[in-house]
């Protein structure tokens, strides 16, 4: 109940953003919402099931291109976006069947290779996707401000939907089974957990919303090219966000997305040339000094402070 209330409040607060900010703020808001979707998506397979997936970029790019191709054939936007999610989900189910028997590093590499193969497929099918030249999407007939609002609310709604799915999954049999798999897959199997089925479900969940985010992103920027939508950073940043906010939790991915984008934005403005290094620095500090995320660190810091306070 608390989670639902929190989600509702958060969504309401975020819907007020257009009142407070200009297009720049809305743009930032859209990016935060997009990464919240991706981080939440990764959390299904990486956080709950414990499988280090780098396929987020593949799902995002696949969704972007699916939607872009459909739109170029005149499909309505809503349909194109939904189909993008469906396509990513279907792809995850097929690929998952092939690579989810791998563990650890092997799974990580395979999931990474999936994205690379997709990128090459796009590069080598210029008739359909424009190949390396990229693809232009129809520009919506909206004013700049209206477009900014539309895409902000679309992405926000998707983030809310993804989070709702996360809440449901976390409390369901599926979420429980995934946590079992993450902690001891053999034992989970012996207790009757259909590990293969559950992992595939988690992989599909990590694909469907990421695919839709890619579709919305493509419509938003109305030009996509392979290095942009299959960027490895689209797979890595969500993962960093989840680590930052707290792995396996419902709101950790959102907090992580907010923190990382806020930090990036502050850094990006002043130190453009060492942007990547700053992200690297965040990762190193995160991994070495706060393995349970920033929130856990804050919590344990508070706990440590408490005994020093006045005694009852």
């Amino acid at each position, binding site marked *: 109940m608390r989670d639902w209330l929190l989600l509702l409040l958060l969504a309401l607060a975020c819907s007020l953003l257009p009142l407070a900010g200009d297009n720049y703020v809305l743009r930032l808001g859209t990016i935060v919402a997009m990464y919240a979707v991706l981080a939440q998506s990764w959390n299904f397979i990486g956080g709950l099931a414990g499988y280090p997936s780098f396929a987020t970029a593949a799902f995002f790019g696949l969704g972007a291109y699916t939607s872009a191709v459909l739109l170029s054939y005149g499909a309505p936007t809503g349909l194109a976006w939904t189909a993008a999610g469906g396509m990513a989900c279907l792809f995850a189910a097929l690929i998952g069947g092939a690579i989810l028997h791998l563990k650890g590093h092997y799974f990580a590499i395979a999931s990474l290779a999936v994205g690379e193969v997709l990128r090459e497929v796009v590069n080598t099918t210029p008739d359909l996707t424009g190949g390396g030249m990229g693809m232009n999407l129809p520009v919506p007939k909206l004013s700049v401000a209206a477009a900014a609002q539309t895409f902000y609310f679309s992405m926000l709604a998707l983030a809310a939907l993804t989070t709702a799915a996360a809440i449901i999954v976390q*409390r*369901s*049999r599926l979420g*429980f*089974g995934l*946590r*079992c798999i993450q*902690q*001891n897959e*053999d*034992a*989970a*199997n*012996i*207790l*009757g*957990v*259909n*590990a*293969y089925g559950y992992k595939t479900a988690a992989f599909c969940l990590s694909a469907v919303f990421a695919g839709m985010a890619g579709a919305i992103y493509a419509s938003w920027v109305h030009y996509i090219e392979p290095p942009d939508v299959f960027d490895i950073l689209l797979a890595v940043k969500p993962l960093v966000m989840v680590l930052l906010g707290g792995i396996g939790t419902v709101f950790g991915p959102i907090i992580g997305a907010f923190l990382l984008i806020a930090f990036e934005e502050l850094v990006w403005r002043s130190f453009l040339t060492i942007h990547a290094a700053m992200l690297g620095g965040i990762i190193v500090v995160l991994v070495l000094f706060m393995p349970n995320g920033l929130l856990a660190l804050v919590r344990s810091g508070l706990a440590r402070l408490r005994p020093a306070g006045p005694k009852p």
Partner: protein
Amino acid sequence: MTALLALEGVSRRFGGLAALDTVTLSVEAGEILGLIGPNGAGKTTLINVVTGVHPATAGRVLLQGEDITRLKPYRIARKGLARTFQIVQPFPRMSVLENVAAGAVFAGAAPSLKEGLRLSREHLAFTGLAQIADKPASTLTLAQRKRLELAKGLAMNPRFLMLDEVNAGLNSSEVDEALAMIRRIAERGVTILVIEHLMKVVVSVSTRLAVLHHGALIAVGTPREVLADRGVIEAYLGEKYAARLAGARPAEGA
């Protein structure tokens, strides 16, 4: 009457090595079957074959006449076959209660998570773990972990429970408690297979004994018959000792 579980000429090879060699064995409902044999005889392999972890390379495994040889482990688990692991396998970052609930929920004993948690409390009371229900499994002592394994298995509401060295590493009073618990589980109508190293223990608890040696079944029968079997004594103690014992009457266990 068909046996609860029947192995028909079951073999399991790993590369060139036959870990189980054409084993034919049946387990009747309600019995406690002790499975003994020297290290590396294939005892754990037999459990792995039955539970589908390492499916048989030849032969059939039948559960009340139904062929389960090629079923996936989770399907076999849902048919009411539960096991414990020799090296305990808890979900370390879950509470004791959640560990047990996993067994109840996924093996099909409980229709919902909530019901699973309720049932699990009963199993924890039965196994004497109720006081530590909310502790993370990783903080438990070895004896507590062994009991947790047992509780997880029970929560699956099994027809057949396979216990792989649940007593290894326990002191004698802990072993006595564990044995009492095994007997109480049997009284509930659960058929049990016990793998055990300590001869005294297995003889006192089993209604029947089966002996594996180099992957082959060399004797099956009441504890008294099996312990008097020359082949068994040789397998355990070596030929020399067996020959020496042949003069005197073989010592009867416990």
